[in-house]
């Protein structure tokens, strides 16, 4: 039995009211949407806010629709942050335009969790580590860790930097599609590419400050022309967090030659990693076996997982080229 610590639950019905509640309670408050990450973490005493500000009753955070955009000529698909992962995975426009995103959303955890968990929550998911996602009793017995209550990293032993793993399924796909995240806070609204949303710090790995709400994801409709793929490695085919995920989006011309291509892996370090030099290698070439091998080998060189998840890091590393290859083969079969 894991009890929650005492807290007050607030259910504002507008963004303004939510921001005002956060201003009132400051550091003692946290935003919560589906609760599938915040609640177990509170049960583990990783967060102990006195106030939870729930975002699920806010109508402004609902809806999936195509809208015009001031900075994207063809317009964007706006996915509001409190839409559940089930809704994103099954939405006809998402499936039609961005099948890799629907796929990634459909592979988060298990069905019940996707009915509660939201796309916004998935993007803002806390990083995970063997030495962090444990009960207070367990963590205390080990003398705590760098990310919470302690001053030593049990993964790197000597390191002073937290290496907890970014473990969300949808961000890698959103990055390959050139999506943008919109945040609303006490200082107003700001937007940034999802690619810039993450930082390489396992303790807090996003640029969202704790008093900001991720309100929506905007995906350029033009990205729908890309061939997309998403593959995920985990121990069981359901429930588990990823040990590794790979997202690929390729813009291929009529004669099958690559105009541009992007690959993003995650589940390894504290932020999704955009694989570098893909365009240098692939531009103007056919996406054939030879090129796929080259890109997969390049990915292997760039990825160095640590033992932040109790799975042999060498094996996880060896799986990088295997899964990059699978993603690229999926792209060619479209």
């Amino acid at each position, binding site marked *: 039995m894991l009890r929650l610590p005492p807290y007050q639950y607030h*259910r504002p019905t507008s963004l303004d009211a939510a921001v005002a509640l956060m201003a009132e309670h400051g550091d003692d408050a946290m935003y919560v949407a589906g609760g599938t990450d915040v609640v177990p973490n509170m*049960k*583990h005493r990783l967060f102990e806010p006195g106030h939870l500000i729930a975002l699920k009753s806010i109508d402004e955070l609902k809806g999936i629709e195509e809208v015009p955009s001031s900075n994207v000529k063809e317009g964007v698909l706006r996915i509001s942050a409190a839409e559940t992962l089930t809704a994103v995975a099954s939405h006809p426009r998402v499936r039609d335009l961005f099948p890799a995103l629907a796929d990634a959303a459909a592979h988060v955890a298990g069905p019940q*969790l996707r*009915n*509660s968990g939201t796309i916004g929550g998935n993007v803002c998911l806390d990083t995970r580590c063997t030495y962090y996602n444990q009960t207070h009793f367990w963590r205390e017995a080990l003398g705590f860790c760098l990310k919470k209550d302690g001053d030593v990293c049990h993964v790197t032993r000597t390191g002073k930097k937290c290496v907890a793993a970014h473990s969300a399924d949808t961000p890698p796909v959103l990055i390959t599609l050139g999506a943008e995240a919109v945040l609303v806070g006490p200082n107003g609204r700001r937007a940034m590419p999802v690619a810039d949303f993450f930082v390489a710090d396992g303790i807090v790995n996003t640029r969202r400050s704790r008093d900001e709400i991720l309100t929506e994801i905007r995906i350029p409709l033009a990205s729908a022309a890309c061939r997309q793929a998403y593959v995920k490695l985990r121990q069981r085919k359901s429930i588990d967090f990823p040990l590794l995920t790979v997202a690929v989006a390729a813009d291929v011309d009529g004669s099958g030659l690559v105009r541009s291509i992007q690959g993003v892996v995650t589940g390894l370090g504290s932020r999704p990693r955009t694989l570098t030099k893909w365009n240098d290698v692939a531009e103007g070439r056919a996406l054939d076996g030879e090129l796929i091998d080259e890109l997969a080998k390049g990915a292997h060189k760039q990825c160095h997982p640590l033992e932040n998840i109790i799975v042999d890091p060498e094996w996880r590393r060896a799986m990088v080229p295997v899964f990059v290859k699978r993603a690229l083969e999926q792209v060619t079969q479209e």
Partner: protein
Amino acid sequence: MPKTTDIVRLHVNGDAHEVGVPTHYTLLETLRYVLALTGTKQGCDKGDCGACTVILDGNPTLACLMPVWEAEGRQVVTVEGLAGPEGSHPLQDEFDLNGAAQCGFCTPGILCSAAALLERTPDPSRRQIQEALSGNLCRCTGYAKIYDAVEAAADRLQSEEEEAK
């Protein structure tokens, strides 16, 4: 002084309840310790096992991760609410006839996941059943008899519907 208890209004299995709860209670704790509906099981208590699955507005949901306040104004169905006035739900009968429960701890959650599936998809494929139950862990049966039971219940519900026509 912040409140440590408050009144929550719930609709569970068709009944309206207005009960006092500690403000930090989950829906699961409220069902089990306040409403005495102990059919919904407390397993891992952190969203892995699916034993606490209830049906919330038609969707299988984990009661252990839901602050009870989030269930206000919504329809909750637990395993106790599956049986109708005529007797047990066809799923419950078929679980019995097919030997789909061994220790039985995961059964209430699986019944809820399966009941929600059959509401939406009256004639599910084996694959759809597997997907619908993929968030419920069973360590005894190996699942085969559970899938058989869900298929049999779907057949029975469909033939009952045919007869009613």
